[in-house]
């Protein structure tokens, strides 16, 4: 895992199926993502340990892929592992990709 994690980090958003580059360097949140693209989570910043560990249990943590399906002004739909979730703006802004 440690190795895989490091690899993912090094690849900075490169996925096997679809290539999506994140070379801006500035921290991008899910709200800045493009629908249909898969990203690698860099960091989760909810300032809420319980929420963090809840997200973790869903498979949403650093190094894991996350796919944005659609995006609205105040919410977005993502795929984490094999489940689809609706996230509100606050939460999607806390997920750095």
């Amino acid at each position, binding site marked *: 895992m440690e190795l895989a994690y490091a690899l993912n980090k090094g690849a900075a958003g490169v996925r096997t199926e679809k290539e999506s580059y994140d070379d801006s360097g500035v921290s991008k949140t899910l709200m800045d993502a493009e629908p*249909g693209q898969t990203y690698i989570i860099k960091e989760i910043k909810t300032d809420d340990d319980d929420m963090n560990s809840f997200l*973790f249990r869903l498979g949403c943590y650093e190094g894991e892929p996350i796919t944005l399906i659609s995006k*609205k*002004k105040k919410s977005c739909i993502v795929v984490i*592992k094999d*489940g689809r979730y*609706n996230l509100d703006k606050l939460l999607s802004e806390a997920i750095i990709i």
Partner: protein
Amino acid sequence: MRIAFAGNPNSGKTTMYNALTGRSEKIGNWGGVTVGSKEFQLKKEFAGDKEVIAVDLPGAYSMSPFTPEEGITSEYVRTANPDVIVNIVDATNLSRSLFFTTQLLELGIPVVVALNKTDINEKEGTKIDAAKLAARLNCPVYETVSTENKGLSEMIAKAISLAGTMQKAPYLQADIDLHDKNAVDAEDRKRYSFVNGIVSDVETRKTLSAETTQSDKLDGVLTNPIAGILIFAVVMWGVFWVSQTWLGPLVADWLVGWISAFQEWVAGQLENSPAILSALLADGIVGGVGAVVGFLPLVMVMYFLIALLEDCGYMARVSAVMDPIFKRVGLSGKSVIPVVIGTGCGIPAIMACRTIRDERERRATTMLTTFIPCGAKIPVIALFAGAFFNGAGWVSTLSYFLGLVLIFLGALLIKGITGYKYRKSFFIMELPKWKAPSLKFAFRSMMERAKAYIIKAATIILICNTVVQIMQTFDWHFNVVEEGAENTSILASIASPFAILLIPLGFGVWQLAAAAITGFIAKENVVGTLAVVYALTSFIDTEELAMTGGASTVAATMGLTSVTALAYLFFNLYTPPCFAAIGAMNSEMKSRGWLWGAIGLQLGTGYTIAFLINQLGTLFTEGHLAAGFVPGLIAVLCMAAALVLIARKVRAHFDEQYALHKGSKSVNATA
């Protein structure tokens, strides 16, 4: 022996539990339907000669609880020592489910994995090698489809045979300090990588779950803030229209014909008997209960449609689209689910609030969710719509949307009173896969509810009606009340003081006050009591009544105008719910202050709404204010003043608490 059913939310635990025990616990296609544990004996065909009890638990993602209902599950498997755990794994989301599975495997209790929803996987071309998975997890794995009873008997037979054995865990958590957050995190990470390793080994997918599909496009529309809410409004309007204006009354007309024929027959048989007997049996028992049962078709159609909605997966989308609005008033998107369940009955709605994580949001939702008219209020709505508004469909739609508006306003009020400070309130809702709703399930749940409705009418409502009839027939000296002196009856003398309070609302007569009071025992009683005190029955027969002038007879007997009728209807809808629901509120809120706040708020709201409708409505229709405007206004102002006082008190308290909290936090930080 006991078998516990544990797994992720919405993996189909309750569906499997129902199939194995023959029960019909509530199911729905979203996570968090089951909020308490349930247990029942397995059917003979599965258990054989043994006495096996199945325990259904709320869904959980892991052993560390995040919401209160998840805590029930981890607490149960840890402390109640079930003999076997059946871990229901959602085969469409193996990678997430196995995290919890590996934790369950560590407990030492034998585990059988039921790989559920394999039919969906087949459709999507996902293959999971069950044998390999079993080998990796070190426990038996069975492919099941609980909606079709597939694979269940083999799975449960294996589970029973495993009782008493020890489970060897394929993955054991290292010996770490559980208070050290970083160590726990690292450990959980390792566990996930172990799980990921298994998944990549046993699962082959044809369609990647990250691909955008047709259903994603649908979700896009349904969660669109404007279109989504419009669609929700149309869907709900459709449900009310079909159940209360079209199909429901169609069947009800026919049913009521039979009931009134029976009542006439009973009255005919008792022609030569004392008048009291005829009144008690024909008017009180048959008439009162019949009036309530007459509305059964409306309620049944509604239950059927709601069951379809809950089964297809739409509720999660509604919750997602409503979240921003609910959040603005200080609730969460999860508050939508109690609200929708509340259209059936307030008690499960109140209990469904458990899935809301934040305590303030949870209590506020508990407090407000009963503003949505429940199934027991449908007869009341239908009665008034039929008698005063020509059976217009807008009455019920308005009742529900006004209920929603009151929830918003109430939430704003609570937000104001509790001095709600900006707090990060995250919202995450799993969007389950769409599925065709099962007609069989909806029909079954409708029939069971109909049965319960009849039982309620034949027990509680019946006894209440008899008591009302007796109280109305006799005065305090147990003399029969003379005709023309009805005001001396026991019922009249008890209800009259309340009636005075209701004068500003336009319905200050003791009969209506009595009906409103009996409504607290069960809301159907409003209809039953009105039937008894006014000796009316064929409420629902709108078409026939319209021809014979019956609807206007009802209206004339009650002495209500359309304005006061609407005020009375809304008063009954938005005052506190029945005692059972208040009891549920009490046990869920776990706070006297909040409970009394809730009752006070509901009383105040019902009173104010009725007052406004009566006064303003009379002003518009007749050009002057209705009777009792000044005392009513004083009452409303008093309530407002009480609110302000409470708000001040709570806020002062709140600041204190907040300060204290801050203090303790900084102590922790420095320590």
